[in-house]
């Protein structure tokens, strides 16, 4: 809740980056295909997708390292066509961090300030401030070669932030760190973004990273933007199977459309019977077939004689133990693929024997209708 209050404080409805019909072709290959996107001022925005989906290409075009084959990009209302990278109000944190090896930490951070010809005191103050922002105070004289991966990442961040850009671009900044450090940096990056209020655009292929840090996410596949929404909406209401599959686990059930109206769909399925589900915003009907989805954690095990208004019955065929949770594979008569179920171990889900009959409860709200 606290986060939401802060979000409202730093975020406005003003568009900071306006991407219009941008296409980037390499010969006949389209790295980016007619992408349009409006990123708001003060927003933490993520471009999420598998490798080769065009997310890095898009980021590099915002930075000015690549030019659109067609379409236009504007930053803060200013068209960026023909403006070279060194004169754009954007700064970038590179995937490899690109720390200048011949300079020390301080000199790295002050690199971009030199051109501004500030007086020595002001320059020093800004460098100190940037180093403090990334918790590197006191390491200014360290040589670039003597830094750990996490420290290099912080230097790269400080070097970009010290320029006070309108937009900070981050190209998979956490991918080179180990898991623990990565999770810690996710929290820190988010906190930093809230503190400085600069628009952050993050490129990542890690869905959890995107979900944890972003105000909004654009999911991309094959050079196209599939969905732009808040993390919660992306996760709960994926626009199609591809998006649903890319973000976490999802059970897919074949469905027939019985009825379609403004906001909802009535679907016939084999395992779940006739259900009503919300219609996704960008639903495009493809004949009578559709897909019904439900997240594994939205299926709950019904113990003993407990009953629920909506339930399915089946048989446990596999059980996988993950410490705090157990992953069950449940075969439901009539379904072509067994369902995945994740259940917390508080009630003994890790003791359910393989082969046992099982009943699963679900909330019809958790059902997602997707175009096939």
């Amino acid at each position, binding site marked *: 809740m606290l986060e939401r209050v802060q979000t409202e404080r730093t975020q406005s409805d003003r568009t900071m980056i306006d991407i219009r019909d941008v296409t980037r072709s390499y010969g006949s290959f389209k790295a980016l295909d007619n992408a349009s996107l409006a990123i708001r001022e003060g927003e933490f925005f993520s471009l999420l997708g598998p490798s080769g989906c065009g997310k890095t290409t898009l980021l590099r075009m915002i930075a000015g390292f690549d030019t659109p084959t067609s379409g236009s990009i504007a930053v803060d209302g200013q068209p960026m066509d023909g403006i070279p990278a060194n004169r754009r109000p954007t700064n*970038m944190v590179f995937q490899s961090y*690109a720390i200048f090896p011949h300079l020390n930490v301080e000199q790295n951070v002050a690199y971009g300030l030199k051109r501004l010809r500030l007086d020595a005191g002001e320059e020093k103050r800004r460098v100190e401030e940037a180093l403090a922002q990334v918790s590197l105070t006191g390491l200014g004289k360290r040589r670039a070669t003597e830094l750990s991966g996490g420290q290099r990442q912080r230097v790269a961040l400080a070097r970009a932030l010290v320029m006070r850009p309108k937009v900070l671009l981050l190209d998979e900044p956490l991918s080179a760190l180990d898991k623990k450090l990565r999770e810690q940096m996710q929290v820190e990056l988010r906190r930093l973004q809230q503190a400085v209020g600069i628009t952050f655009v993050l490129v990542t292929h890690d869905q959890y990273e995107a979900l944890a840090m972003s105000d909004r996410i654009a999911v991309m596949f094959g050079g196209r933007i599939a969905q732009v929404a808040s993390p919660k909406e992306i996760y709960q209401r994926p626009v199609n199977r591809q998006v649903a599959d890319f973000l976490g686990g999802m059970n897919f059930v074949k469905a027939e459309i019985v009825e379609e109206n403004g906001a909802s769909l009535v679907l016939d399925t084999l395992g779940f019977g006739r259900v009503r589900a919300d219609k996704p915003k960008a639903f495009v009907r493809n004949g009578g077939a559709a897909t019904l989805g439900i997240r594994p954690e939205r299926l709950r095990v019904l113990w003993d004689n407990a009953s629920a208004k909506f339930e399915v019955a089946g048989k446990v065929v596999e059980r996988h133990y993950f410490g705090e949770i157990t992953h069950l594979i449940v075969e439901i008569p009539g379904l072509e693929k067994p369902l995945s179920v994740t259940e917390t171990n508080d009630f003994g889900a890790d003791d359910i024997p393989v082969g046992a009959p099982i009943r699963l409860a679900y909330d019809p709200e958790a059902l997602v209708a997707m175009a096939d």
Partner: protein
Amino acid sequence: MTVAAEGSPPLRMAGSRRSPLLQSEAVQGFALISPTFVYALILLVLPILVVIAHSFWTQHYLTIDHTFTLENYRIALTEPIYRDLLWRSLYISLTVSLLTVLLAYPMAYFISFHGGRHKSLWLFLITIPFWTSYLLRVMSWKVILGYNGVLNSGLMGLGIIGEPSDALLYNSTAVIITLTHAWATFAILPIFVSLEKVDRTLVEAATDLGDGPLRSFLRVTLPLSAPGVISAALIVMIPTVGDYVTPKLVGGKDGVMIANAIQAQFGKAANWPLGAALSVTTMVIVSLMAGATVLSIRALQGLAR
């Protein structure tokens, strides 16, 4: 050869009782380098020691007096003729290495940054002049720079000069021109290699932080390629100080260098000890100059901020 075989891991000669000494990594390492080491010892270190020893002796016609003396060094350092020759040699080699590096850098830069798929083709093309003998290349410079040479007739044809100039050949300028051309490839290669190692993202990062192409070159690419510049400068400087063939062929009277004087002492003048003292002096001074060059390039690199 046998030494190398002993050093290689499957020790057949050691047979069943494997000596623990030969198992140690250090010993195996020494065994591996020993053929080269012995070679270097016999053909490099020993001759140098012989030269150094000679420099402290005295020549009496056909015999050599083995009493220790510094007389040869006094002559080498104070006789105006040798001092002038040494200065001229240092001046020529310094100028040649400076010019070579200045001319080689853009070529190496072009191949590394804009060579695209054809990098190896470009490098191959650069080595083509080296397919002919060095003498032939020096001779062709004679043809170009000579009184009735290509350059003179070209300039006359264009009406720039009225009569052939004899300022082109048989002086130190001719030596500098010839040596600069001869050593270009040896300078291009190390600079190319160090430019290849410059991470292109660093240049992008500099651009991202506001640098235009020239500034990012001066602040990132150039300082990071300094190791290549240093090796190029040394590779050219050290051998050119002692170059003998080029001044002999195109240097004329004004292009004579210290190596020609050394050769004369070992040859016609038959004063080996003096020749040896001149060699040692040159060697020491070249080492000092090389060290100074390395330090000054490093200092320049440190200026990049």
